[in-house]
């Protein structure tokens, strides 16, 4: 317990100090926070509940569009903004910007979770690969359809409001970094709190055998929908911040980017270890460092590397880093190891 507090304090201090210690990596650190949030929320479905979704990108993209639309729409006509690219005609004052962003984030969190609740009953009734393909279709459909809607910029994209200068202070990077870091802490604590309750046991029961769980009197559908709504809430928040950070929203390349973010979140959670609290965090960090290195030095070959990486991780490393550690040091994970039993097994081999 004592060790844990030191660990958390160290991470917190590092997180607060990071943008000042590494000022050049502010944007990268913010993206890392977003990636960790996405991995953690995917893990609620894929890891704990056993519902491997490709569709959480739907909530992420929805949050992104909603946050930016609300931020603009609160003060200016949205259609004219998207038509003109926005920047020349309308300028947010700092107060308007922050007010709009806060309201936008609230909407970006609440609406996707309502959407998840509404579609949850029909979609979460699907099992296994049908669920996976259905959610894949959902994500791509959302991207294609939003690319045809005029008011949010259609194919030419949507420029989010530029960050205002407060006096002479230019703090865009810090602002978005602390936003994403705060949401990351919020997500982590919320998920940690959830995992220490009966709710996690129910999710695991659904993963292990849904029919049996239902036979034991658990209303599985209710829990599945609540789980999905929690994911959608934080995915929407992450999307809203990411929209402001990138500054430009395109339907298929930024918002509903199933080929990048949609796969990344699955991959990060699997790389770190499905069904663990820390797995997605570690997986996302390792993945992001690897990805940035690769993206920088082998520009153009990144998707080739990504494809190979997916295949290699899925085939040779499906348990992830946490699973590997658990096999190596079972004592650290609170598993009681009977020394005599282990020796007997080794001798048998």
């Amino acid at each position, binding site marked *: 317990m004592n060790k844990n507090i030191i660990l958390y304090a160290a991470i917190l201090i590092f997180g607060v100090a990071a943008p000042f210690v590494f000022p050049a990596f502010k944007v990268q650190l913010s993206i890392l926070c977003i990636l960790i949030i996405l991995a953690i929320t995917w893990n609620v479905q894929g890891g704990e509940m056993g519902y491997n979704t490709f569709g959480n990108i739907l909530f992420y993209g929805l949050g992104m569009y909603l946050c930016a639309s609300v931020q603009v729409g609160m003060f200016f006509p949205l259609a004219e903004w998207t038509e003109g690219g926005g920047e020349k005609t309308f300028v947010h004052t700092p107060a308007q910007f922050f007010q709009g962003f806060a309201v936008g984030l609230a909407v970006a969190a609440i609406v996707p979770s309502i959407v998840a609740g509404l579609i949850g009953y*029909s979609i979460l*009734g699907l099992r*296994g690969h049908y669920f996976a393909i259905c959610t894949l*279709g959902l994500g791509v*459909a959302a991207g294609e359809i939003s*690319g*045809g809607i005029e008011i949010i910029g259609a194919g030419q994209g949507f420029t989010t409001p530029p960050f205002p200068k407060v006096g002479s202070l230019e703090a865009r990077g810090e602002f978005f970094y602390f936003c994403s870091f705060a949401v990351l802490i919020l997500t982590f604590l919320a998920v940690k709190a959830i995992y220490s309750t009966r709710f996690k046991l129910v999710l695991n029961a659904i993963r292990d055998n849904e029919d049996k769980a239902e036979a034991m009197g658990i209303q599985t559908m209710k829990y599945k929908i609540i789980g999905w709504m929690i994911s959608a809430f934080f995915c929407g928040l992450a999307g809203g911040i990411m929209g402001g950070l990138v500054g430009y929203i395109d339907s298929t390349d930024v918002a509903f980017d199933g080929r990048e973010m949609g796969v990344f979140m699955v991959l990060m959670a699997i790389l770190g270890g499905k069904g663990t609290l820390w797995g997605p965090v570690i997986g996302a960090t390792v993945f992001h460092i690897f990805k940035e290195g690769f993206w920088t030095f082998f520009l153009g070959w990144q998707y*080739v590397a990504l*494809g190979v990486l997916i295949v290699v991780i899925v085939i040779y490393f499906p348990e992830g880093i946490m699973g590997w550690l658990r096999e190596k040091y079972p004592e650290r994970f609170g598993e009681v190891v009977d020394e005599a039993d282990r020796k007997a097994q080794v001798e048998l081999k």
Partner: protein
Amino acid sequence: MDFLIFQVPMLTVQAVLDGLLLGILFALIAYGMALQWGVMNIINIAQGDLVILGGYIAYFMYLYGIHPAWGVIVSPIIMYFVGVIIYKLVINKVVDRDLFISILATFGISILFMQLMNFAFGADVVLANSGYGTTMLFDNSVTLPNSKIFSAFISIVFAIGLVIYMKKSKLGRAIRATAQNARAAKILGVDTEKVYAATFGINAALCGVAGALISITFTIHPYMGLPYTIRSFMIVIVAGLGNLPGVAMSGMGLGVFEEFADYILGTEFRIGSVFLLLVLILVYRRFKLSKKREYLK
């Protein structure tokens, strides 16, 4: 209503004919998907990318001055070996595992193929011009490119040929036996590993044929693979595994649906409507099945 299709009734005929001819092509791809799904219990997300790769083979023959219709013969031969290589490298390690592992692994292959094709062939939309001309029907109000008729004809020939091959040949019987019970087939001396490789190769070859036909009739682009995967998946779940007339029917139905969606909603919503239809079909199926389950209780 200011929809063009209601003002010009002949467009309905056009859409239906286009859709049927397109749907036969979809059915051919879906047949390959049903084959590998039934035999190996694998959902191949890279299916559409194999189609596009097959299309590029025909396109390159066209670039070098060979008539692209020969691609219908060359492309499946090359694609067969591509399929076997993919099987040996990746698929044989995921055959016995969880279906999601196979989905994710083939998703990786799909991204890899997409990008390699983008490097090799460029990101332009291309087509191989067959120079077949067009047929005019009903006082020139319905235009039908001969290449579409050609592609539908070739698809039917290949599909019938494959059905006969599966029924009569030794390998075909081994494949069907493995699909029914892999373990029993193994005990009776069927080399299931070889059967799996051949199945994946045949699937890839079918994709090659379809791709060559698509490059003649429509256009190809490195990133256009995923919609073909989704379409074939949809056709297979609507028709059911091993129901060939069903695959043909639902393929043509999907083709007609797409043409109408194109006319009524607009081309920009075409792909979106396909994916949305998939979601709707799956949801419909879920409610139908859940009713059945309750009834059994």
